[in-house]
Structures are given as structure tokens and as C-alpha cells.
């Protein structure tokens, strides 16, 4: 027993001396749990995602349509965009605008309320959802939330549709009579003031009268009923021709994770060379420090490029992802992503005192960057400030590049901004790494 206790004490002392291990054991999980919490709505009283950007095109003159827009604006889940803010002067969004903005990645979803929102013939409502479903989870979540919002307002909307039909079939006078009779029947069955009920019915509130208070009532059974009355047309703006959508959506995130881990292993190897005195031997030859660093960087890019290409080809073989249809553009994005990752590896090596610390730091950064950057779950579901942070990660931009190529089939010109950002990240991170190398003790 004594022996075991002594050995255990040794292990604890060892562990506490190894700061990177402590960080990985405690700090990394806490940071990740915090991020998960945002996505799954565990933080505080809030639940569910907020601020998902949603384009809303209202082509209908009906007051009911305006009510629906207002209801959507009232949902904290959505940030409703109803004007084309990219145009000067700004003007209300049209369907064409929405399609263009989705294509330009300003938002992934738009609700179109067409002019025949309440059709002349027949009972029901027509709506159109434009989407770029590049992320499965996000698409399902948004569709679900959109339906919930629409259906919880449907009784109101439907009532108007009903009144419109009634007028058409019965004429004004007879409609009035019908409404009064209906109000009488309703009040005698459920109680309440007959005149007030008649007015509610006339203003289209028949749903409210029949279904109770729509805001608080359980919407689930009604949704089943109303979904037959509401015609929602789904129009996919991007990725229609993608051969294996499910695999195409996830492949980028996975590829980035593995690339980052490969790169971090490389930065730990940097220290093996340093410790073996290899740096001394290399630098005693006609080799400059800067050449030593740049050779590592170039190697990192090559490794990343080969790894990514291999992973995508595996995706082609296993899941039929259309890799060869966009091969040239894919290689361009892979090169830019590999450059950013290689610079990231240099950064870790520059700021770590030894291989152990490099491993700890890279595990921490790879996991948090993958989580915030959207490799694990859609960043659209994160709070807005997290989405802003995401745009500072190379994971986000690499994945953006991959999905632009594989999902949206962007042309080389369309890819340039994303590739440019990745290369700028590579240059910036590499500059900091070199600055640090030159001041640090790596070469001593």
C-alpha cells in the first residue's frame, strides 16, 4: 500500500509540474463546454439559437403578411433582413435580391411572402422559403423554427383567408349575416360577448376564436392541421446539383481537424530537432535561421496540401463527393488553407518553450478553434458575438472555401476573397511567429 501511495504521489507531482497537461485536463474542457453551451442553449435562461439572419421578402399587400413579418421580427431566433442593405439607396428586398444575397453568402435563408400569399381561389396560404442548405443541422433548425413561427400565427392569417373566400362565395351582406350567426353559435357554445366575437371573426380572427390564444397554446397538434392548409415551397439556391450533399457538407470540417492535428505534431517535432543539437549543426553549416524557419513552413504547406487532397479523394471514393469536377479550384483553396495551417504550426512552435508545451498549446487551440470556427457545429446557431469570433479563425475560412468550391461550385474569381483572407491569415500569423522566433530562445 505504501508503495502504491508513494507512486501515486509521484504521479500527482509529475502532473502538476506539467503545465500543458493541467491546461488540457481542465481548461480545454471548460472552454469547450462553454462553447457547446452556447450552441445547445444551456447558458443562463436563454435557450435555443438567436440572431439567425433571415431574409424576408414581402410582396403581398395584405395586412396579414405584414403581421407575419412583424411576428418574425418579434422572434429573437431570427434577425430579419427586409431591405437590401448592399444596394444604394437601400430598398425593400425583392426575391431576386434575396437569391443574390444568398448566393453571396450574406444569409442562408429567406422567406418570400408572394403577392398571392392569400390565394384568390381556395383556402390556405402560400409561402416560399429560399435556402442554401449547406449545413444540415442549421437548415433543419431554421426550417423548424420558421414553421413554428408561421404556424403559431396561422390561425390569424388563415382567418383572413377564410373571410376573403367567404366574401367571394357569399357576397358582403350574406357574409355579415354568416359572421353574426357564427358569433352567436360560438358564444352560445363557449360563452363570451356575441358582438365582440363577431368583430373578431370579421377581422379574420376566426382561428383565435376556434383555437384559443395562439401565443400560449400548444402549437403541435395545430401545426399538423395547419400544415395542410399552408403551402410552403422550398427553393434551394445553392448545392442543388451536389451529388452527395450529406458528405459534402461535413467533409471540410473533418479535413480541417485532421490537418490541424498533423500540423501540431509537426511543431512538436521542431523541438526534437532543437534538442538533438540539430539546429546547432544546421546553423553551423551555411544555413540561415530564416531558411530553417521557411523550410518548415514550406514543408507544412506541402504536407497539408497532400493530406487535404488525399482526404478529399477518399471522400470521392467512399461517399461520391464531386472532387474532380472542381479539382483546380479545390487545390487552390487547399493550398491557401494549408498555408494558414502551416503558419499556425510555426506560431505554436514559436510561442512554446518545449515540445510538451507545444502539444498542450496546440491541443487547446485546435479544439477551441475547431469548435468556434464551425468544424463541429454550424456557427449560424451560435450567439452573434461568437459568430464574429469565428471569422477570426482559419477553420472558418477554410471551411468556407471548401463549401464554396464543393457546395456552391464557385468560380475561381468568386473564390478569390476567401483565398485572399486565408493567405492574409497565413502571412499575419507567420510574421508574428518569425518575430517571436527572432526574439525567443529557440536557437540558444
Amino acid at each position, binding site marked *: 500500500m505504501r508503495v502504491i501511495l508513494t507512486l501515486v504521489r509521484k504521479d500527482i507531482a509529475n502532473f502538476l509540474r506539467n503545465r500543458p497537461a493541467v491546461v488540457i485536463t481542465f481548461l480545454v474542457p471548460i472552454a469547450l463546454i462553454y462553447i457547446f453551451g452556447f450552441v445547445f442553449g444551456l447558458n443562463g435562461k436563454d435557450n435555443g439559437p438567436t440572431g439567425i439572419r433571415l431574409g424576408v421578402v414581402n410582396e403581398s399587400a395584405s395586412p396579414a403578411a405584414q403581421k407575419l413579418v412583424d411576428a418574425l421580427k418579434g422572434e429573437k431566433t431570427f434577425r430579419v433582413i427586409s431591405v437590401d442593405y448592399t444596394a444604394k439607396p437601400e430598398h425593400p428586398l425583392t426575391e431576386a435580391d434575396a437569391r443574390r444575397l444568398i448566393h453571396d453568402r450574406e444569409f442562408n435563408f429567406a422567406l418570400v411572402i408572394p403577392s398571392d400569399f392569400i390565394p384568390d381561389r381556395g383556402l390556405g396560404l402560400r409561402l416560399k422559403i429560399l435556402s442554401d442548405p449547406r449545413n444540415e443541422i442549421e437548415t433543419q433548425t431554421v426550417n423548424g423554427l420558421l414553421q413554428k413561427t408561421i404556424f403559431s400565427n396561422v390561425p390569424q392569417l388563415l382567418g383572413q383567408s377564410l373571410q376573403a373566400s367567404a366574401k367571394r362565395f357569399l357576397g358582403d351582406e350574406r357574409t355579415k349575416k354568416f359572421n353574426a350567426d357564427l358569433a352567436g353559435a360560438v358564444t352560445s357554445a363557449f360563452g363570451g360577448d356575441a358582438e365582440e366575437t363577431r368583430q373578431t371573426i370579421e377581422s379574420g380572427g376566426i382561428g383565435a376564436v376556434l383555437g384559443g390564444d395562439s401565443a400560449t397554446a400548444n402549437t403541435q397538434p395545430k401545426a399538423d392541421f395547419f400544415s395542410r392548409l399552408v403551402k410552403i415551397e422550398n427553393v434551394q439556391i445553392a448545392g442543388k446539383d451536389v451529388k452527395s450533399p450529406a458528405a459534402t457538407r461535413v467533409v471540410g470540417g473533418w479535413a480541417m481537424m485532421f490537418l490541424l492535428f498533423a500540423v501540431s505534431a509537426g511543431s512538436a517535432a521542431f523541438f526534437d530537432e532543437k534538442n*538533438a543539437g540539430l539546429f546547432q*549543426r544546421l*546553423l*553551423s*553549416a*551555411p544555413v540561415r535561421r530564416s531558411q530553417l524557419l521557411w523550410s518548415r513552413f514550406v514543408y507544412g504547406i506541402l504536407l497539408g496540401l497532400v493530406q487535404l487532397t488525399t482526404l478529399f479523394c477518399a471522400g470521392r471514393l467512399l461517399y461520391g463527393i464531386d472532387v474532380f469536377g472542381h479539382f483546380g479550384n479545390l487545390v487552390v483553396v487547399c493550398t491557401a488553407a494549408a498555408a494558414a495551417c502551416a503558419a499556425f504550426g510555426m506560431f505554436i512552435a514559436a510561442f512554446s518553450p518545449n515540445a510538451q508545451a507545444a502539444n498542450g498549446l496546440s491541443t487547446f487551440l485546435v479544439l477551441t478553434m475547431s469548435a468556434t470556427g464551425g468544424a463541429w457545429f454550424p456557427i449560424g446557431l451560435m450567439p452573434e458575438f461568437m459568430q464574429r469570433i469565428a471569422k477570426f479563425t482559419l477553420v472558418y475560412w477554410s471551411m468556407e472555401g471548401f463549401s464554396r468550391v464543393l457546395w456552391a461550385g464557385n468560380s475561381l474569381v468568386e473564390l478569390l476573397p476567401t483565398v485572399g483572407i486565408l493567405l492574409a491569415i497565413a502571412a499575419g500569423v507567420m510574421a508574428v511567429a518569425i518575430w517571436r522566433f527572432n526574439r525567443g530562445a529557440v536557437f540558444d
Partner: protein
Amino acid sequence: MLITRDLVKRYGPQLALDGVSLDIGRGEFFGLLGPNGAGKSTFMSLVAGLRPPDAGSLTLDGVAVTTADPSTRTALGLVPQSIALFEDLSAEQNLRVFGELYGLRGALLRERIDEALEAVQLADRRRDQVKKFSGGMQRRLNLVVSLLHRPKLLLCDEPTVGIDPQSRNAIFDFLEARNREGLTIIYSTHYMEEATRLCSRIGIIDHGRIHALGTLEELLTRLPFADEIAFPATPFTAEFAARLAEHGELTTADGEHLFRSRPEFKTSAFYALAEECQLPARLFVTRRPTLEALFLHLTGRTLRE
């Protein structure tokens, strides 16, 4: 060939070199003898241009050595104290990498590689990974990698640490042969036997200072005694040892007393005292003094400390 003047190097508050001035001539086999932490590796790294000195000057063939200009480094080869090889690569691949860094190409490079592998008896293991080599084989390769480009000056930083006697002798023979061919060598070690066997001139270094400089003979004449007398350290000799202490230096190690007399204390007086203490003459062994003794005399410490 190599001239250093008042070299000073600090690591933070730690003074690693404290005014080292040396002139090393063409064709010399110069030994730098000192214990761990004396500053040997630091001196080598300054000469190799890996670090700048904090003060002092350093010229190789009249050209100042700087960290900035790597082109001057083709004139020298550094054998680092640690085994600085790519251990996942084969012996041949290692040689190829370093040969190419020194600008060797094609047939010439192949020729030099064959020669090098032959010279350290590794030709039959050329395609094996270095990590599968014994310590001695790695040391031999570590040495020969630095000579591919035929430098004029070779810096060997403790090249025989942790090695079997056979490999050690192979390295000695190899270095002596290169030195005879005209290679200038600076060889650092904490083994006085190595300095004694190999070096034409020796500098004794401790705490970053050169305490003595010269050929083996010159150095040993600096000792105030001619011989060392060894005898067993037992209870029977305890009284004798105590009485000897006032006549010279007495050290004890490994169950043995080692006595170095003052010049005025003659050998006859020594034996008279032994007889007084009833110790027979056969207990005593007379030895030539060693560099170890000189080091102890100069610094009050032993080389193994």
C-alpha cells in the same frame, strides 16, 4: 588560424566565458580540457558563429566570425556534443542532407559519402536507420558528417561521451589521421586521458577562464611536485596520512590516498616518515603526475565534479 581575444559570453546573469584569448595555429590538435559547465560548448558555439559574443573578438584566417554571414562557415565543421542526426533517416541520407547543405552535388557528393562511411566502418550499415545504431556507431557518424565538406578547422565538442572503448579508439585513430593530413582540430573534453593522448597543446578551462595553456610537458612542469605517490587508505595508514598533510597536498579517492609533496619535502624524508609509522615501502606506488593533478592544483576541484 583562429584568434580569439577576451571573449565574454553571458546567459542572463550566468557568465559562461570570462575573457578567453587563444591563438590556434594551422595543423594544431588543440585540447580544451575542463569539467562540465566550464564553458567548452559555449566557446565552440561562438567559434562556429552560432551565437555572438557579448564582448571580445574572434577571427578565422583573418576574417571576423559573425552570426550574420553563413558563407564563411564552409571553412569549419562542428561536431556537436549531442548526437545531432536525423535518427529516422539512414546514415547515407544524413550524409546526403548535410553534404548538400554545404553545396556538394552529384558524383562528388556520392564519392565523399562512400569515403566517409568507409572511414568510420559504417559502409555495411549505410541504409540502416540511425536510431537503430549503437551509441558508438552514432558517435562515429556524428563525427564524420562534419567532415564531408573538408573543412580546414574541425570543432569536436566532447565527441566520445557515452561510448564503448572500441569506438573511442576508432575515433582517436580517425582524428589523428586527419590531423596528420593537415586538419586543424579543437577538441573539448573532460577526460584528461584524451587530452593527454591526442592533443599537441592543451588549454585548461574552468568557470569560463583559461587557467593554463601549453603542451603537456609545459603544463606538467607548472606542478610544484615531480611525482605523485599513491597508497591505500586504511586505518593502518591513517596516522601516516595525517602527518603527511603538512608536507604537501593529500587527496583521497576510491580507498586510495594520493600525495603530492612540496619541493622541499624530499622522497627520502617521505620514506623515513613511513618507516617511523611502520609502513612497508611496498605499500607505495610512484606515478607521473597527470593533468588531473594539475587541474586540482589550479582550481582546487577535480575534473569529474
